[in-house]
């Protein structure tokens, strides 16, 4: 490769690269550095030690992991049958179903979260239905607790799981399934031995993606949790905007960033496998 080839096309990328380095990479590096710095002292690991000594941080971390895990599992339970059902639809019904999955994806997360206040409130639709059917006497409180936050997050993230999963399911050749059927395999066997394993890489990739997004969720816990369900992001907000402890916020951000990037690397591997 000669030296001209090695730079060919670089000019097109350069303007964006400048913006990214100045406004994205540099601030992140600065933030990472801040977590290892103490005024007048230089390099220190103190801020990380503080994190592990304060039970409040560990509790929030545990909270976040638990909510993220439950919301992800709920996503799989709702999303897999939905994607599978969409695969079997006729082309017209399928287009409508895709549109109904894609549209919420693009509607402001605030709007979608806000709607749950109306649906899940004490006088909301769900509670009125539960009381009407006699399942409960008193309203069930869905809002301002973990349940509401989990429902809201599962709702916002569902398209992230359904769309790639559906794309993978669509690629499965019907003839493969027909061959199995003609060899006498019962429907249950075809599903579990052939169909499900073929969707597994996409399912695993989608699950990881949803989990990462859950970890960094900010808007939904803030609104549906009403300050009572702190997740990492809300803790970070407090450390930046209310009791300014920037170094602590930087240390937590660094850990969250590393966890996210590790899971993302796993996601990339699975996603390559799923689309291969």
């Amino acid at each position, binding site marked *: 490769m000669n030296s001209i080839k090695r730079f060919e096309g670089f000019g097109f990328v350069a303007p964006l690269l400048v913006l990214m380095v100045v406004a994205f990479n540099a601030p992140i590096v600065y*933030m990472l550095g801040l977590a290892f710095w103490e005024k007048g002292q230089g390099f220190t690991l103190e801020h990380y030690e503080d994190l592990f000594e304060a039970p409040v941080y560990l509790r929030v971390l545990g909270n976040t992991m638990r909510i993220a895990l439950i919301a992800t599992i709920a996503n799989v339970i709702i999303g897999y049958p939905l994607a599978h059902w969409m695969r079997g639809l006729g082309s017209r019904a399928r287009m409508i179903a895709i549109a109904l999955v*894609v549209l919420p994806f693009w*509607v*402001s997360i605030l709007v979608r979260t*806000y709607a749950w206040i109306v649906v899940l409130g004490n006088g909301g639709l769900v509670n009125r239905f539960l009381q009407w059917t006699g399942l409960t006497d008193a309203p069930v409180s869905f809002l301002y607790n973990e349940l509401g936050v989990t429902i809201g997050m599962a709702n916002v993230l569902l398209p992230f799981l359904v769309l790639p999963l559906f794309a993978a399911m669509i690629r499965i050749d019907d003839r493969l399934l027909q061959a199995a059927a003609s060899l006498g395999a019962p429907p249950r066997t075809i599903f579990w031995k052939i169909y499900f394993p073929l969707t597994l890489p996409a399912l695993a990739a989608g699950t990881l993606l949803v989990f990462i997004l859950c970890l960094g969720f900010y808007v939904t816990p803030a609104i549906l949790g009403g300050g009572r369900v702190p997740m990492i*992001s809300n803790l*970070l907000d407090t450390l930046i905007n209310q009791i300014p402890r*920037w170094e602590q916020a930087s240390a937590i951000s660094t850990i969250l960033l590393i966890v996210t990037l590790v899971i993302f690397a796993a996601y990339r591997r699975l996603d390559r496998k799923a689309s291969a």
Partner: protein
Amino acid sequence: MMDGSPWTRRALAAMGIFGLAFLTVPLVIVIPMSFSSAKALTFPPPSLSLRWYETFFGDPRWMEAMATSTIVALISSVAALLLGGLAAYGLRRGTFAGRDWAEGNFMGPLIVPTIIVAIALYLGLAKIGLLGSFVGLVAAHTLLNVPLVIMVLGVAIRAFDARIEQVAWSLGASWWYTVRKVMLPNLAPSVFAAWIFAFIGSFDEVIVTSFIAGKYETVPKKMFNELILEVNPTITAVATLLIALTVLALAAVALTLSRAGKLKPTLV
């Protein structure tokens, strides 16, 4: 083949319909609520009125937020389109070293949790004294929308036959002339789609904006602040307007892409 008994089929359909309902119910509920005459959030609304729209359009603070959101979204989406479009072209057609690294970096804002981008920008902008400045806000919105632009245009450029450009060059067309007369007419539907996506992305952005916008109020930032304090039915009107805006924008994208026969590659 896998359908099994009619019972299994019905169960699957029920689960699928439940999933779609779970996704769409929030949107379907908000729209009628916005026409309610009541102050309490009861569904269905006791009677219809336009009072929350009147409150919204009559409130100078909401109108100012609307103007700020529109200006920021316009400038940042065009900037993201220009910078991202050029970069997508360089990434697809260029042979320079480190392309994968550059592309990975451009996708960064999509991968790194937004809260971390918000905090990093907050700290960084505070350091250089641009926290709460218009420039900082626009730059942040621009870089957040870059990944989407590169994804949409990257697919379109890859699908466009490079030999067509080479023919134009070999016939003596300049690079700029080729872009204007050969590339853009062919890529126009995707460019439009990328611009709309970037516009919606900026118009809906709430996390980074809440951290760094200072005195600037955008519509989502104002909504978010009001939602944390109290449930105010004016928000239903704002939400309905945002849904309408999104539906119109997506319909325009779908129409443009399907006319060009490019709907499917962009969707999946």
